[in-house]
């Protein structure tokens, strides 16, 4: 888990070494966040590339050096929103995603896996009906497995506020999934 207190920006220099340390530190979390939000590896890789390109481009202009995590997650959130604006809300789960299940497929059987995937698709569809902020929190919580305490400074809200937003988001999703007709 990243710790902002130990971030490489302490020695504030806009050189590539600092950016490299920043990249190494945040790539896994950003990738997991994006992958969780879009559910597709190829798109996640494209968007992760875009996010770090944007970060590199904005690197010299960054101001609040003690809030790099919030900064990069804001770029990530915007990249995901832009992606959905460009591509609509089509089903993103592809053959590639299925094949990456790897031995998971053999551990159960393909039909079980597909039904599981369909359920995940329904969950993602329900997630996309939430507001951008709620989706952002869901991605941070379940994609990155961050605690509410870690999410709070990223969103600029209190820890208890994160809990309430998360609770309401889950309640909306549950209501939507509960009313969805069986196929």
């Amino acid at each position: 888990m990243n710790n902002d207190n130990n971030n490489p920006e302490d020695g504030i220099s806009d050189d590539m070494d600092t950016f490299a340390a920043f990249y190494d530190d945040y790539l896994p979390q950003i990738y997991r966040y994006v992958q969780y939000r879009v559910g597709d590896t190829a798109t996640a890789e494209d968007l992760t590339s875009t996010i770090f390109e944007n970060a590199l481009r904005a690197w010299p202009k960054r101001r609040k050096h003690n809030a790099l995590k919030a900064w990069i997650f804001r770029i990530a959130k915007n990249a995901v929103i832009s992606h959905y604006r460009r591509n609509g809300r089509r089903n993103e789960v592809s053959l590639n995603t299925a094949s990456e299940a790897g031995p998971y497929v053999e551990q159960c059987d393909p039909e079980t896996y597909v039904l599981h995937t369909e359920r995940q698709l329904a969950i993602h569809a329900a997630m996309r009906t939430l507001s951008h902020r709620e989706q952002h929190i869901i991605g941070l919580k379940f994609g990155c497995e961050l605690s509410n305490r870690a999410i709070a400074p990223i969103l600029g809200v209190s820890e208890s506020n994160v809990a309430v937003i998360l609770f309401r988001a889950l309640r909306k999703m549950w209501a939507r999934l509960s009313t969805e007709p069986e196929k």
Partner: protein
Amino acid sequence: MKTKETAQALSEDIDHFLATSQIAHNNPLLRLAIEMAAGTTAKPAPDFAQQLRNRLLENGAPISSPLPHRVRASLGEIVNFPLLPRLRTLVQNASIIPRWVWTTCVVCMLLAAMVASPVLRGPSTAKILARTIDALAIEPGQIIYQVYTSHGGLYQEWQRMEITAQNRIATVEKITIRYNTNDVRFTQPQEWFYITPEKFCTLDRAKFDTFDSAQDTVECRTYAVDNMDPLAPLPGEDLQQRLNRLQTDVQNVVVERSILDNHDIYKLTYTQHNPQSGIRITTETLYIDTATYLPTGYAYTIEPHNETIYEWQTTVLEYVIYEPADLPVNPFIWPPADNTPEH
């Protein structure tokens, strides 16, 4: 309880689950949260991470998108019919052959076909399935060992078979090791998967190099707490069950004799149409060696009620049934030992 307190309690339960994989309560929102946490193991592929890093740092310039990933495996590529072009040529040239020669040949061929048809036709679908089931028959305690390629990797897999609580022989423990496709000597495991009725455990190379071997529950996720019988069958259907299912609906199994990776094989295709279920069409294909009746591959195409089509293909390189005493080391040890188990 006020919303704020309820929300705080739910967050604490979620954090507890994310940290321990243990379910504290049966709250429907928590159940949903657990489902949502199920897919959080994604990590960037090492190649992607390194390439992106290089391009960012070396060029310091915008990066072109990686190559498209979606490559659809074509089943048509693996089955070929080398005699078809020659037959076509023979038929096209038939007009230049004298009529009496042609007539004699046709009569001879018809007579030969009538005499030899039972032989040429080969065994029936029911017989092929019965022989395959015989070849794969297994006793309690035996271990199925397979080497296969699938999903861009090379896999070694051991399955321990026992009589389950349902009084049938089924897989009760399984360990799978993934290697890079070209690592045919199994020198560098990339990922381990271990599954029992109670838990599913994974460990990748990077974590393996740093994990504390004293923690024997490393990287495990516990399944439903009500499934703690160690002799419960693993979720899903194993090959033996699948063959038995096909045998009960043999009239819907289509058999073709073909060639797969230089093996003479029977290709058994079974298609199910389930317009009422969540999955509309399922096509499963088994490739069976004509000499040994052992599996040489599997393929699945599943079409749910949307635009997505799921396809899997596995090529079996080795399939052996062992007595436990035949194996020099117990392969079902978790966390995995430093040395890769020999088969």
